[in-house]
C-alpha cells in the first residue's frame, strides 16, 4: 500500500523518526497552517470551497490509506469534532489537524496508531461512543434510524462486547425502528457492566425497556437452546 512506500522514502532520507515527504524537504517537519488549508482545498470544489463532501472524503481516505468504514475515521472525526458524517468543514479540519500537528497525508498516516489508542482508554471511548450518536444521526430526526444504529454499534462494540451478535439479532427481530440517545448511551453501559451470563442484571433497575426486553428475549432463547441440547444429550 501507499503507507509502505512512504516508510521506504523516509528511511532513505535518514532523518529523524518523524516522516517527511521527499518532494518538499526544506522545513516540512514543522506544522504550517497554510499548508494545512491548502491541503484541505485539494478535496473541495470551487462552488463550496469550505466544505469537504463525500467525494472529497473518498479521495482523502484513499490518500491516507484508510477504508472509510474504518473506526479510525470516527476517531479522527471526533478529534475534529465534525458535526455530520461524510463532511468536514474547513473550521473542523483546521482545528482538528492543528491539534494533531498534521498538514500532509503522511503526517496523518503516522498519527493513525495514536488515534486508535484513544479507543483503548475507557473514558475517551465513552466520549467517542456518545459523539458517534450525534455524528451519525440524520440531523432532521431526533432519533437514529435502526440501520445506521446497527452499523455504528458493529463498528464500536462489534469486537469488544461478547453479547453483540445476540443484541444485533434482537434488534433485527424487534419492532424498534429507531434508537434514541438514552437507549444508545445505555447500550454502552449495559455492555460494560452486565456479565454475559446476565447474572448481575437487575430487573428492577433503571435500564431502558429495550434492554429489559433484550434480556427477556435472550433468556428465552437460551432456555430454548438449553432444552434442545439437554434433550439431545438424553437421547
Amino acid at each position, binding site marked *: 500500500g501507499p503507507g509502505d512506500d512512504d516508510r521506504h522514502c523516509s528511511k532513505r532520507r535518514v532523518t529523524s523518526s518523524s516522516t517527511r515527504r521527499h518532494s518538499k524537504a526544506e522545513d516540512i517537519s514543522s506544522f504550517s497552517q497554510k499548508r494545512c488549508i491548502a491541503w484541505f482545498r485539494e478535496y473541495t470544489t470551487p462552488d463550496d470551497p469550505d466544505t469537504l463532501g463525500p467525494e472529497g472524503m473518498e479521495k482523502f481516505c484513499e490518500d491516507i490509506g484508510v477504508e472509510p468504514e474504518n473506526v479510525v475515521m470516527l476517531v479522527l472525526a471526533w478529534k475534529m469534532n465534525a458535526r455530520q458524517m461524510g463532511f468536514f468543514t474547513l473550521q473542523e479540519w483546521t482545528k482538528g489537524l492543528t491539534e494533531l500537528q498534521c498538514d500532509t497525508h503522511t503526517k496523518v498516516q503516522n498519527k493513525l496508531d495514536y488515534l486508535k489508542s484513544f479507543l483503548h482508554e475507557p473514558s475517551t471511548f465513552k466520549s467517542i461512543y456518545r459523539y458517534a450518536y450525534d455524528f451519525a444521526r440524520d440531523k432532521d430526526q431526533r*432519533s437514529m434510524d435502526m440501520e445506521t444504529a446497527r452499523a455504528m454499534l458493529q463498528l464500536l462494540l462489534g469486537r469488544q462486547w461478547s453479547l453483540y451478535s445476540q443484541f444485533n439479532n434482537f434488534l433485527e427481530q424487534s419492532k424498534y425502528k429507531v434508537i*434514541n*440517545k*438514552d437507549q444508545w448511551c445505555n447500550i454502552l*453501559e449495559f455492555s460494560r457492566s452486565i456479565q454475559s451470563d446476565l447474572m448481575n442484571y437487575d430487573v*428492577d*433497575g*433503571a435500564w431502558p*425497556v429495550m434492554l*429489559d426486553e433484550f434480556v427477556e428475549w435472550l433468556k428465552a432463547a437460551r432456555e430454548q437452546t438449553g432444552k434442545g441440547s439437554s434433550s439431545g444429550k438424553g437421547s
Partner: protein
Amino acid sequence: MSLKPKTVDFNQTWDTLQETVRGVVTLGNVPRAIWNDRFSDVYSLCVSFPEPLADRLYLETKSFLENHVRGLLELVRSKGETSLLQAYHASWVEYSQGIIYLHRLYLYLNTQHIRGQKLSEAEIIYGNVTPNAEEQMEIGELGLEVWKREMIKPLQANLVSHILEGIQQDRLGNPSHHLTDVIRGVIMSFVSVEEYRKSQNPELYQEIFEAPFLKASGEFYKREASKLLQECDVSQYMEKVTQRLEEERLRSQRFVHVSTHPKVKAKCEQHMVADHLGLLQSECHSMVVQERERDLALLYPLLRSVQGGISVLISEVMEHIKQKGTEAIAGIRGDNYHVLFIESLLAVHNKYRTLILNVFHGDLSFIGALDKACISVVNTRPNPKTPCRSPELLAKYCDCLLKKSSKGISDTEIDEKLFQSITIFKYIDDKDAFQKFYSRMLAKRLIHQQSQSMDAEEAMIDRLKQACGYEFTNKLHRMFTDISLSTDLNVKFNAHLKAESIDLGINFSIYVLQAGAWPLNLTSLSTFSVPQELEKSVQTFETFYHKNFNGRKLTWFHHLCQGDLKLGYLKKPYIITMQTFQMAIMLLFEDTNEMACSEVEQALKLSQDVILKHIASLIDCKLLLSPDPSENLTSESILKLNMDYSNKRTKLRITAAMVRDSPQEVEHTMNAINEDRKLYLQAAIVRIMKSRRVLRHNALIQEVLGQSKVTFAPSISMIKKCIESLIDKQYLERTPNSPDEYMYIA
C-alpha cells in the same frame, strides 16, 4: 381527764391495758367506757413525764402480739391436718379484724410517735438513707407482720398444699362448696398481711402461693391437653378447651387475686393451644375449605390468643375466597355474561362477608383478607396480554340497570343493585377503564334518551364520586349539565321561532354537548349532505346559536341523531323512529320507488361502508327490498321501496341495530385509555421530579405507583417507557454519576 403530761407507772398501766388489748384482738366485749380509758392510757404513756414510755409500750405490745399469735398457731395445729385450712381461716378472720380495732386503740401512738419517726417517701426516693429494718411499725402493720412471721411462715407449706389440693379437686369436678370461701380467704390473707406495704406487688402471695399455683396449673393443663387429644378429634378438643378456658376464668375469680387472672389464663392457653398450635393450624385448611362454621368459631378465639397463631387461618380464608370467587366466574357464558359475572362476584363477597361477621366477629384482618381475595379475583386477566375485563363488565352491568329496558324489577331493587355494584367498583384496579366505559354508555343513554330515571343516574354518579373523588366524575357531571342546559336551549329556540314566525316544517330538538366532556370521536365523522327536509332546521339553529354564543363552533353528529318518519304510502300510516342516515335514505324514495346504491351514495355524500350498513338495516326491517337477498350489496344493487310493508304496530323504532356496541368500539376505548394513562403517568413523573429535582429510579417508580393507584395500576414497563420518553423530550436526564438516578431539567 387532763392532757397534761404526767408521771405514769408503766407496769400498772400496761397490766390494765394488756387485758383490754387481749379483749380487742379476740373480738371480746369491750365496753365503751373501758375503751375510752385505755385510749387515754395509750396517750398518757406516750407523753409521760419525765420520759415518754412510747417505745416501751411498743415493745410490750409487740411481744404480747407475738405470744398471742403463737398461742393461735398452737390452737390451729391442734385441730389437726385435715381441718388446717378451716382452723387457720377462723383464726385469721378473728385476728385480722381484731388488729383493725387495735390499730384504732393505739391511734395516738400510731399518728404521733411512729409516723413521726418514719422517713417520708421523698427521703426514701431522693435521700441517701436506707430504711431501718428495726424501724417501728404502726400497730396495724405490726400485727399483720407478726401474723406473717409467727403464723404463716410455719404453716405455709401445709397451707399451700391444701389449697392446691382443693383447687385441683375443683378442676377435677369435685368442688367442695363449703371450702370455697375458706380457700379464697386463706389465699387472700397472704395478700392482706402485706397491705401496708407501698409495693404494688403482693410479694408474699406471689412467692408462697402464686408460683406453685401456676406451676400446678401448667402441669394440670398439660396433662389435660394430652389426655383430651387422645380421646377427641379436633372439633371436640376445641370445644373442651373452650369450655376449660371459661371454667378456669370463673375459677380464677372465685379463688385467686386479680393479678393472677391473666397469668393463669396464659398458662392454660400455653399448654392447651400454643403447645398444639401445629395441630390446630394443620386443621385450618379443611375447616375453611369445608366451611365448618362451628369449628371455625371455636378455632378463632383459640388461635387469636397465641401470638402469630391467627395468620395461618387468615391466609387460608383468603385463599378459599379467592378459589370460590374464581370458580364462581369461571363457568359463565352467554349474552348475560356481565350480569352473571357481577352478581356471582357479589354473591361470593356477601357470603364471606357474612361469614366473617358471624364467625370471626368482623375481625379487621379477615375483612382485609376478603378484600385482598376479591381484588385478586376481580382483577384477574384470563390472558396476561389482554386487559382485565371487569371494568367493562361492571360498566355494562350498571348500564343495563340504568337503561329503560330493565323491566320487572322495582326502583328500590335497582337502587340496591347499583349500591352493591360499588363494592365491586372499589376492588377494580383499572378505575380509569371503568370510567371510560361508563361514560361511553352514559353518553349513549343520555343522547338516545334511554335512561330509566335521571335520579337513579345522578345517585350512581354521586356514589362514584364518594368512592373515587370529584376529579373522577367531573366529566360525567358535565354531561349531565349539558343535557339540562339543552332543554332550556330548546325552549329558547322554539320561542325564537315563534317570535320570528319561522316554520321549520318539522319538530326539532337538539342537544348541544361540550367537546371534551363527552366521549365522542370527532375523527369518525363522515361527510353528509343533509336532506332538504332538514336543512332549514339545521341552518336556522346554527344562526340562532351563533347569535347567542358568539365564537363557539358547532359540529353536527348526525350519526347520533334520530327522527320520526311518517310513512304515508302504505295501507296504514306508520310512524317510525329511525336514525338520521336511515331517514335520509328513506327520504330519497319520496319521488321514486327504486334507486341504485350508487345513487344513494351520491345524493347523501356518505362514505360507502356507512351507506351500505344503513341500507342493510333498512332491508333487514323490510322497509326496502334488495334485488337478491342472498347476495351482498354492492354499489350497483338496485333498491326498491317495499310497498307491501306491514307491521302489527303503527309506531315503532328501528334504531336499535345502530346503537349496539361493536368490538372495535371496545378496542378503541382500550386504546383511548392507554393514551390517557401515558399522559397521566408523564404528568405525574414531571410533577414528582419537579419537586424532588433528583430521585433514584426505584423511589420514582414507587411514588408514581402510589399516585396512580387511585385510578389504575400501571405496569412497571409502562412507567419506564414514560420516563424514557421524558428523557427523550429532555424533561429529565440520568445523573452522570449514577446509572439509576434521574434529574429534572428545568
